[in-house]
């Protein structure tokens, strides 16, 4: 059983985001990137399956800022192989292009199961998971929070709004978009990552020509106009608590 996990980095939303001068994209000068949170869950889910069965976990990412660190961290957590797709500027590709570059790589690996994060907050032309599944001609279930592999079968839990979860059986090979793993993503110490960095090689896999048809033409990025913001309660914790109590009393809940 070969499980491929594809991972990407996204702008850290805790930081202030700047738009570049042409208003065409985010200004990357000060942009801090972090692993896309659902991807960490996809990796965790893959590693849990590896512990239960004799599975090989292969992590792939597009070459770009921070990818080596992300891949080595995945290896430190237990991924068997880490592969960087090189030859295309991973920081500027749209998701249709990414899916088209991943398709032959996934076929070549002979993966039985591909797991992506369910979504990243910066996509504009759809999530890679369903796009990739469509290109591969494989079934796809996304918004998954739990995967069980038994024999040739794959049972997943798919989430719907309102907290409803539906159990689905999926034929392999398949692509799954992971929302959360059954347990929080494991932590790995920086010292361990450093150690693995010395002994593990990031495999490089050159890709072919980029085909980015399928996304819209972007005219401009802008910030939303801020409506009325909250009025802030000033003072130390006692003063703030007293004001809040008064507000709760006025609202009739106290």
């Amino acid at each position: 059983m070969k499980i491929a996990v594809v991972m990407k980095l996204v702008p850290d939303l805790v930081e202030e985001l700047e738009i570049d001068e042409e208003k065409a994209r985010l200004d990357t000068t000060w942009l801090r990137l972090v692993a896309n949170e659902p991807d960490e869950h996809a990796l965790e889910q893959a590693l849990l399956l590896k512990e239960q069965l004799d599975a090989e976990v292969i992590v792939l990412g597009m070459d770009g800022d921070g990818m080596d660190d992300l891949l080595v961290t995945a290896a430190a957590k237990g991924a068997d192989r880490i592969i960087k797709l090189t030859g295309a500027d991973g920081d500027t590709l749209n998701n249709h292009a990414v899916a088209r570059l991943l398709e032959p790589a996934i076929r070549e690996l002979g993966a039985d199961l591909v797991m992506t994060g369910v979504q990243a907050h910066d996509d504009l032309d759809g999530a890679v998971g369903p796009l990739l599944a469509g290109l591969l001609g494989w079934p796809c279930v996304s918004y998954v929070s739990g995967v069980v592999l038994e024999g040739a079968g794959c049972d997943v839990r798919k989430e719907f709004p309102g907290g409803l979860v539906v159990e689905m059986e999926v034929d392999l090979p398949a692509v799954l978009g992971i929302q959360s793993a059954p347990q929080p993503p494991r932590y790995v110490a920086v010292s361990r990552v450093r150690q693995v960095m010395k002994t593990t090689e990031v495999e490089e896999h050159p890709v072919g020509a980029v085909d980015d048809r399928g996304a819209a033409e972007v005219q401009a990025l802008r910030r939303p106009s801020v409506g009325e913001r909250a009025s802030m309660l000033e003072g130390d914790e006692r003063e703030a608590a007293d004001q809040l109590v008064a507000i709760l009393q006025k609202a009739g809940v106290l």
Partner: protein
Amino acid sequence: MSRDIYVVVEHREGLVEDISFVGLAAARAMAEGIGGEVVAVVLGDGRLIEGLAADRAIVVEDPALSEYNPEAYVAALEAILADELPRALLAGDTSVGAEVAGLLSARLDLPLVNRCVGVRAEGETLGFTAQICGGKILVDGLLPEPTVLVTVVPGGFAVEEGKSETAPSAQTGPRPTLDELRVRVRGHIEPDVGDVDISRESVLIGVGRGIQQEDTVELADELAGALGGAVCASRPVVDQGWLPTSRLVGKSGRRVKPSVYLALGISGAPEHVEGMADSGLIVAVNTDPTAPIYDVAQYGIEMDINDLLPTLLERVQEAKG
């Protein structure tokens, strides 16, 4: 290619999801601009066309479509699109719409735009506004021609605008063979019963990643108890296993509308906000003065929860006497 705008109607347990009414409202704005019709696409249950603000409906009924199955939905929609390509096909940016739109985009080689919060017609041209980076950035662009797939998020169009007193005229769509599907529905896991139903509480204390430690959940729970309410949570807290999924508020959790929602250490991501924005009074406690939660809250306290919470609990208990 026609000028019509199709909307995939998402439904569960006999009810149309609000996001589909949002989609119908967006479709109306597009269709009016370019002189097309709004067409509701209803898979599984033709009775659901009642109350949809559409000019007509395409209905496909088949046991395999009685509830959502990605394979069946994609096959049915492919058959409909093979009959005629509309100017746009809209779906919710949800666990149904996002999946179906991505699959169709790749399989039919149709462009896709997701996260749309606004659409506009400029002459024959259709423009969109999408929301990225947790709502911190808006992107304006043009919807590719001649046919585009679009997924919409809540916020730009009112649910009511997608509703109607009457039903659109219905036509039966093509019915592809839907056996040997590679995905099969096995069963439902309903949200845990026995636990609190947060959608019925009038006071909710929402806890987010900013609470940092599990112990704080207990403190928040005590505060909720003192106020006669309950604790609920954002996704990271539930993923951490600190509260059950039944307490999750937002896109993949419950929609709540308490008289008071106190958000502790919640940044205010759109996926969370869509579940609680309709609350009567929203008060947020967050150390980051730029956190988006302060856009929806009426009152804010820029303070470490660990400093505020014990004092607040004390004061609330005193006030109760």
